[in-house]
Each structure stands twice: as structure tokens, then as C-alpha cells.
């Protein structure tokens, strides 16, 4: 802190003067705005320990206020069993302009420097470090110049969220008291979206949730009830005014692979760091009724935007998809919101049955689609629209992850051009959550493109595929190249562990032959 003492009075004075001049120029104020128009609001430039204490108490923390030997006011509390401190600096007459928050992760094993370094590279807003027996996650915020009155809440939430990420990164568990957790799937209530807040009653539960909680019913009766209760007509796409809204889109089947696309509309005012949506997809094929649990992952979806993720499942035709059920949400990690926002998102979730929209634009009721074969928009010649066009990667060493690009030549109308990554696990290691950031380029493309692929868990000997829908036109592709894998996480949680296992991080150009 010595670096910034004393209070930068000179600097502040000069900045304020300069800004006064700068802001008096109309150009700044008249800048066209995007989602949020600048507006006059109450701002804070300092905070007292008492005010901070009250804010934290309001969030449900059991806090203790005290003063350190060097007169620094601090507040102590525990989150998920981890000691957390809020320290206030740069104080004059109890009014402080810098807030620091530190969460301690004691116990063993202590994360290595490498783990800490990786976290500091990829994390946002916080920094991590260790000493002899403890790891720390720390963040700080200056109120100088003025921040919105909501900013402190946002700061606390960001810190909590990133602490949870850090815990996951180092293989610990972290369940902040003010963060909701969805219930573990018990198997008894597979289609009920349940929300549990550890050790706390949910402050505002929606009526439907309350009902679901009061009347737990058996699996069969739920299914029947839902089928009856969810007529989901063509125009009944869920459209609450806030919260998360999911829409299931479908495309043409091909070669036994069927993309089930889950579109997320973020109608909250908060940016999502990461949202995981595990769902159960039920469908039928010649072997009878099938179901599959898959997890959609949405990283970095900003407020007001939508994001599309697809997962490919093995069915032969669209008619085999009976319905898609959002089963439960595993994680709800947000940036910049008070914890109460989670309530809003939960109540805004659509029904567990989601209608499937055919690419032709026809909407099919999820509960009745199977009674009659839905009309195909146009019979498609069954030829190889999806080709594994990627040349096999050089297999020079055993015990590797074999990575290859997979592409279709078919534009998914109104959605984009699919590009996929296939990873075969030739190692003896089990990867719990494999993520790869792949740099590829298309011939004639102006710049290499980085795409993150979430491949899920991968057992030894197993194969995982993930697809991205690129906004560009498939027709623009003449060839694509897997240039590099710039990030690979997955072995034991999110720790960077698979880089050494990758068989290939560069390949030659992959020709894409168009069928048209």
C-alpha cells in the first residue's frame, strides 16, 4: 500500500481538473451508447467499516468487525468454511476509499506455483498467491472518482465467484453461503428443476418451485403430469421478461448424428462467467426409448445477448427426438450481481419440456411429435454431408490425446457453419472436464480464429466430440487448419494438465470439399 500513500491528493486534484475540462466537451457525452445509457446516479467515493459490515450482513454473512494493529479496519467472516477478510485502506475519518477482499484456502495439498500461475493467467478480477501453508485469493477495488452504489455488491460477488473457480482449479470444494447450488440429481425427481440453498431457506421461491417442493411426486407421475401440462404449442416459446430462457433448436439429421442446439437468452442484466446446463435428452430409435444426459456450457454470455451451443447425439432422424428436457442446472456462476439475482433466473426458467423447432420453421409440440412422423422440409439425399475431413494426426507416440478437426459441409440454416473437434483418449488418464482452445484458420481467411471446445469427461480409450457453430458461411471455407491448441485443461478438475498429452497441436491444411 505504500506505493499509493499518501492519498494521491495532487494526482486526484489534477485528474478532476482535467476531467472537468474533458467532460465539458460534448463529444464524450454524446457518444452513442449500446445496452446501457449513461445516467445520473448516486455514487459512492468512500465506504466506512460500518457500512461495509451492514452490506455483508445483508447478504447473510456472520461478520465480525475489528481493527488490526496498524489501525486498518477489517471485517472477518467465513464462506464455505474458508476465512475471508475485508480490509479497508486509504481511510480518513473512517471513510475509506480502497476495499480489499481476501479468501484463505488453508490445508493441504497446497497448490503449486504452476497452478497459481495458470489461475492468474486465466482468471479475471482477482489474483492468487501462496505462502508456506495457505493459498489466497485477493481482489481490491478503488472507489476514487465514484462508483455506483451497486459496485460493492458486484465486487463481493465477483470475488466469491472467482474464489469458487479457484477452489475448483486447485481441486477443493467451495460453496459460498450466498451462492445457490442446484440439488444433486437423486434419480427420484428427474424432471423437476430443484433449487437448494445450503443451510438456508430460499428467500423468494416462485410459486411453481414452491409447489414442486411441497409435492414431490414419483418419476412416472411427474412425466405424465408434465406431458399433459406442457402443451407447448407452436408459438409458446418461453419468453419471460428476465432471467435465462432456453430454446431448443434442431437441424437436419445426418449420418446418425443429430445436433441438438440449446440456445440461451440471457435476459438478466448480468454477464455470465460460465453457465453449465446439464440436461436430459430423450428420444427414440430402433432400439426403443433412449435418453442421454449432456451438459451444455456457456462461457461469457453478456447481458442481453444469446449464445448457442450444440451437442450431437446419435439418432437417425429428427422424428426420433421426442422431447428435450432441461433436467437441472448444475452451476450458476455470475459476475456482477447480488446473489438474489439467482432467484430471478430460476423463476424465469421455462418448463422442463422444450418444444423443438425444425429448421423449416415448423414448430412441433414436444409432447406430441412422436405420434406422427413430422414432415421433413425436403427429403435430403443421404450422402455424406458430414465428413471427417481432417486428416488423421500423426501417431508417433502412444499415450496421447489424438486431436482432429471435424467439419460438415452443410450450412445450418440461420445458425452458421459447424466446425468440430474430435479427441480420442489414447492415454490411461481420465479427464474429468476437457477444454481446448483451438486456433484454426480457413484458407483465405483474414485471421486465425480461436475457438474453445468443451469436450466434457473423457475416459481412457474414449472419444469426445464438440462442435461450434461459426457465424461465417460454410461456403467461405475452402480449407481449414488446426493450427494450435493454445489451452487445454482437464486433468483433475480445471488444472492445466493435458498439454503434454496432446498428440498434435499443429497440422497441415485440411481440405474441405464442398458437396455443392
Amino acid at each position: 500500500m505504500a506505493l499509493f500513500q499518501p492519498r494521491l491528493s495532487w494526482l486526484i486534484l489534477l485528474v478532476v481538473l482535467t476531467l472537468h475540462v474533458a467532460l465539458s466537451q460534448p463529444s464524450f457525452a454524446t457518444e452513442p451508447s449500446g445496452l446501457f445509457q449513461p445516467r445520473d446516479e448516486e455514487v459512492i467515493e468512500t465506504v466506512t467499516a460500518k457500512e461495509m459490515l451492514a452490506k455483508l450482513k445483508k447478504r447473510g454473512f456472520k461478520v465480525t468487525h475489528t481493527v488490526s494493529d496498524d489501525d486498518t479496519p477489517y471485517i472477518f467472516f467465513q464462506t464455505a468454511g474458508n476465512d475471508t477478510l475485508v480490509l479497508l485502506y486509504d481511510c480518513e475519518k473512517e471513510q475509506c476509499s480502497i476495499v480489499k477482499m481476501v479468501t484463505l484456502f488453508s490445508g493441504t495439498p497446497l497448490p503449486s506455483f504452476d497452478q497459481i500461475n495458470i489461475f492468474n493467467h486465466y482468471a479475471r478480477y482477482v489474483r492468487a498467491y501462496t505462502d508456506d501453508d495457505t493459498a489466497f485469493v485477493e481482489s481490491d477495488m478503488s472507489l476514487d472518482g465514484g462508483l455506483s452504489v451497486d459496485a460493492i455488491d458486484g465486487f463481493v460477488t465477483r470475488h466469491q465467484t472467482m474464489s469458487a473457480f479457484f477452489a475448483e482449479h486447485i481441486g477443493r470444494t467451495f460453496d459460498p453461503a450466498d451462492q445457490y447450488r442446484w440439488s444433486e440429481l437423486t434419480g427420484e425427481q428427474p424432471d423437476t428443476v430443484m433449487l437448494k440453498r445450503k443451510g438456508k431457506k430460499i428467500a423468494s421461491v416462485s410459486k411453481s418451485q414452491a409447489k414442486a417442493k411441497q409435492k414431490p411426486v414419483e418419476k412416472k407421475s411427474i412425466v405424465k403430469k408434465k406431458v399433459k401440462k406442457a402443451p407447448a404449442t407452436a408459438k409458446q416459446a418461453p419468453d419471460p421478461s428476465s432471467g435465462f430462457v432456453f430454446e431448443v433448436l434442431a437441424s437436419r439429421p445426418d449420418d446418425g448424428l443429430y445436433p441438438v442446439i440449446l440456445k440461451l437468452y440471457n435476459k438478466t442484466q448480468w454477464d455470465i462467467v460460465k453457465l453449465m446446463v446439464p440436461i436430459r435428452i430423450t428420444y427414440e430409435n430402433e432400439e426403443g426409448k433412449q435418453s442421454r444426459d449432456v451438459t451444455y456450457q456457456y462461457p461469457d454470455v453478456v447481458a442481453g445477448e444469446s449464445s448457442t451451443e450444440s451437442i450431437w447425439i446419435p439418432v437417425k432422424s429428427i422424428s426420433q427426438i421426442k422431447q428435450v428436457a432441461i433436467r437441472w442446472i448444475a452451476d450458476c456462476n455470475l459476475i456482477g450481481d447480488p446473489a438474489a439475482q439467482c432467484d430471478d433466473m430460476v423463476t424465469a426458467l421455462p418448463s422442463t419440456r422444450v418444444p423443438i423447432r425444425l429448421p423449416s420453421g415448423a414448430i412441433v409440440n414436444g409432447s406430441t411429435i412422436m405420434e406422427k412422423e413430422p414432415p421433413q422440409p425436403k427429403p435430403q439425399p443421404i450422402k455424406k454431408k458430414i465428413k471427417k475431413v481432417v486428416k488423421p494426426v500423426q501417431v508417433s507416440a502412444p499415450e496421447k490425446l489424438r486431436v482432429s478437426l471435424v467439419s460438415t459441409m452443410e450450412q445450418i440454416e440461420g445458425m452458421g457453419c459447424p466446425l468440430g473437434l474430435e479427441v480420442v483418449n489414447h492415454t490411461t488418464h481420465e479427464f474429468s472436464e476437457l477444454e481446448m482452445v483451438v486456433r484454426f484458420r480457413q484458407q483465405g481467411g483474414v485471421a486465425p480464429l480461436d475457438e474453445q471446445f468443451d469436450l466434457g469427461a473423457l475416459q481412457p480409450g474414449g472419444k469426445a466430440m464438440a462442435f461450434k457453430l461459426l457465424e461465417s458461411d460454410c461456403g467461405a471455407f475452402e480449407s481449414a487448419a488446426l493450427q494450435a491448441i493454445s489451452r487445454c485443461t482437464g486433468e483433475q478438475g480445471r488444472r492445466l494438465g493435458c498439454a503434454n498429452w496432446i498428440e498434435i497441436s499443429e497440422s497441415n491444411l485440411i481440405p474441405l470439399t464442398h458437396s455443392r
Partner: protein
Amino acid sequence: MKQSLTLLLLGLSVFVAPMVGAEIKTVYREMSPAQITRLAETMEVKVTNKKRSDGLPGLTLNYGDYNATLFFYDCVVADQCGSLRFSAAFSMGKIPTQQVINNWNDNGIFARAYLSNSGTPIIFWDYSLRTGATVESVAYTILRFKSVMAAFVEHLQKGE
């Protein structure tokens, strides 16, 4: 000299008093590179556009002694972006140890440090506009990053 300084301070304090004392200010939840450029240039920081491979906006801030890169994130509409990342990489001749980097993260403030794969020490400072910030707050951050860079260099030179 001292008298002039006092007079200057008095004059300035009168001039800026309404701004400092006000509790209501214009709050921004996103800003464009153009706005940040104008703001930085007002404070005599030279700004040039930086091309990013991901297509998002970026700026190079030239503080005289140091250059920094300003990345824009959470850009939803046009170039209006909800968060900023100040970044600077340093070539020190020799690769600092992880302990040195760890010490910075322990004792430093605002920015975090890490070592790139090639051993380059890099600092990041993430700043969110989404929760609402005044222009003055952004300006402080722009100016403070220079101090942070200087402190980081000093820290690296000092070593363990």
C-alpha cells in the same frame, strides 16, 4: 513558489468543488474505445489502436516510460464494452522466478502478475464498468496503471 502553489490549489478547489462534493454523477456501464481514447489523451497518454486476433477492440497506451495494452471485453452493441483489461508485459533480460511473481501478487495491489509460457512477466488489471463507474474512476484507473507498472518493474528488479 509555495504561495503560488497554495493559490493554485485554492483556485482549483473552488473550480472543482461542485464535482467533488456531488453525490449524483453520470454513471457509465459501458464505454467505447473512442471514449477511452479521448479520456486518456486528455491526460496526455498517447493512444493508438491495436488489432486483436479475436476482433475485439484494443488500444495501446503510451505513458512515455511504459506502454500498456488495453483490452475491451463484454462488447455487446457496437464498440460499447462492459469491461476493460489493462495489460503490460516486461522484458527483463532474465526470467523472474515464480517466487518473485508470487510475492508481487501477495504484496502488490490492483494488478495481478503471471509468467507467460516463454517466461515473460505480465500484469493484468481487470476493471468492470458493468456495475457502474464514473468517468473519473476510469481516469484514475488509467493513471494508476502507470504507477502499478512502475512498481512492478521495481519489484522485478529487486528480485526475491
